[in-house]
């Protein structure tokens, strides 16, 4: 009887010296829905192909039939580690497009929330880098401060993760005293915790040996690949949207833009870590500026733009006029002006841009989100090529890839 084999190998495959390894779409080492089909030679990565799009939800198509306010909840679901930045980035785009002026107090309140969001974003990313190098402690320890940040969000807008925070022209309500008390608690306690967190990693020999020299990129290549945010700054380019094209009165604050030199995982960690200190300093400055407002100025939490700012909920329930306006604004009965705008904010992981094209209708004609991690994830192969498989895992987490943003 003829010899039977169960597996028929393709012709020539026996000479293949590398192994094809499929990581993902769901895998404990990829924090999100990422698939990589890698060719590995032993433990060395020869090549990889990233597959994205597993949680694509057609946001850009959906946005074409939604009035401005109905798009805000969509932006929550981009980078869900720092959704307030996305919400405010979108509202700032609308305000710039509609040419609305905002009171300074609103800008400062927004800065507080956006910097809190940046801290929570960097905190997750850096602690996950810790988890992937074998240190779970830091991750668990800092979670209680992310929780505190979420409690502040909750006090301001009522929700925690997908915040839908704010309105075009400001906030839905003034910050309560509880919100400020929680903010003070955060400002008092968090710097010490951050210092402890830093001590756990920054000069830790195991951590340094795992992260130094892995996943590095030169400034030139990083620019060519469209890197932005902490990943670009780690490579040594001091580009920060908050400084270059200030929004929400960032020009009133004094802060540094930390940069690295080698663009490797260790530099990315250090840049994020230093940015958290800068964020704390910005929040302190903003809080101080807010306390300087006296009298009626200290009560301002939105601009006077009745065509775009939703009326108070109590009035909507009791007054006809308010109810009509509420309906008109939510359903987009007010046509947008014609034109187009590109407006960007510094998101948790890079330049988050909104390209809005309007044909004068009630909804955007086209809305494109410039998602930073979609653009820099294409460099992943170059970052990990020739390195160890275990370094690829660390590189992936230190890039701060957020599947929701990547796939839009």
């Amino acid at each position, binding site marked *: 009887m003829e010899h039977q084999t169960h597996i028929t190998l393709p012709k020539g495959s026996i000479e293949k010296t590398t192994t094809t390894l499929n990581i993902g779409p769901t895998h404990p080492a990829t924090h999100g829905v990422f698939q990589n089909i890698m060719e590995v030679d032993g433990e060395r990565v020869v090549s990889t192909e990233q597959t*994205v*799009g597993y949680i*694509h939800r*057609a946001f*850009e*198509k*959906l946005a*074409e*039939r939604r009035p401005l306010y109905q798009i805000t909840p969509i932006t929550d679901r981009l980078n869900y580690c720092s959704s307030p930045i996305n919400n405010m980035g979108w509202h700032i785009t609308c305000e*710039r*497009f509609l040419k609305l002026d905002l009171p300074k107090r609103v800008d400062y309140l927004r800065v507080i929330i956006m910097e809190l969001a940046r801290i929570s974003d960097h905190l997750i990313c850096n602690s996950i880098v810790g988890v992937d190098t074998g240190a779970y402690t830091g991750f668990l320890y800092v979670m209680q401060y992310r929780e505190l940040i979420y409690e502040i969000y909750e006090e301001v807008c009522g929700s925690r993760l997908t915040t839908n925070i704010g309105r075009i022209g400001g906030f839905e309500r003034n910050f309560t005293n509880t919100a400020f008390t929680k903010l003070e608690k955060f400002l008092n306690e968090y710097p010490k915790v951050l210092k402890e967190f830093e001590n756990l990693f920054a000069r830790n020999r195991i951590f340094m040996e795992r992260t130094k020299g892995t996943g590095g990129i030169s400034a030139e*290549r990083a*620019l*060519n*690949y*469209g890197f932005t945010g902490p990943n670009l700054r780690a490579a040594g*380019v001091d*580009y920060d949207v908050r400084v*270059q*094209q200030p929004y929400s009165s960032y020009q009133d604050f004094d802060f540094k833009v930390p940069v690295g030199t080698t663009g490797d995982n260790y530099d990315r960690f250090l840049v994020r870590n230093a940015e958290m200190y800068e964020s704390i300093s910005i929040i302190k400055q903003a809080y101080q500026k807010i306390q300087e407002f006296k009298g009626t100025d200290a009560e301002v939490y939105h601009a006077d733009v009745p065509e775009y700012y939703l009326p108070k909920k109590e009035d909507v329930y009791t007054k006809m006029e308010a109810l009509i306006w509420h309906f008109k604004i939510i359903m987009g009965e007010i046509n947008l002006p014609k*034109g*187009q*705008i*590109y*407006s*960007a904010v510094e998101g948790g992981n890079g*330049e988050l*841009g909104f*390209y809005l*094209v309007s044909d004068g209708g009630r909804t955007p*004609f*086209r809305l*494109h989100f*410039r998602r930073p991690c*979609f*653009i*820099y*994830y*294409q*460099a992943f192969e170059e970052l990990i090529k020739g390195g160890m498989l275990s370094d690829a895992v660390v590189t992936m987490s230190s890039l701060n890839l957020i599947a929701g943003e990547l*796939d*839009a």
Partner: protein
Amino acid sequence: MALSNETIQNKLLEKFGDQVLNFSTASGILSFESSKEINLKVLQYLYEEPSLAFTFLTDLCGVNYPDNLGAELVVVYHLHNFSENIRLRYSVSTSINETAVFTASKLFESANWMERETYDFFGINFIGHPNLKRILNVDEMDYFPLRKEYPLEDQTRIDKDDEMFGRG
């Protein structure tokens, strides 16, 4: 010397003459158009001319204007000069029946996926692209969903038997 929108416009007009057109400034960003045949020449000039140095491709996306016959699809490039801190918007249009546009991925690595995304949603065929295939949608998809000819479902339709979602 600070680079201004006027300087950029004059430089482009000097180099390309009447091939670059429709200059306008909205929200501080200069935008202009050209025919799709010279898009690489324009991008390369903007990149390599030392006084312009638009070396950062911020964004690349498509827009579909179904009523502009013969120029239904538009590719929009957002460029950024970091040292002068100035942005620029450049667009080329193409017919929906003949969607070939030269790829910018040789100049900018970042254009690679952004062009794949634009192909995926608008069907713009980037000539010379190293790996032009769908990126966010499934490979089996046989249409280009962000084109205006594919509307979203009518929210007021009543013919659908869908008890689970309250439309039974």
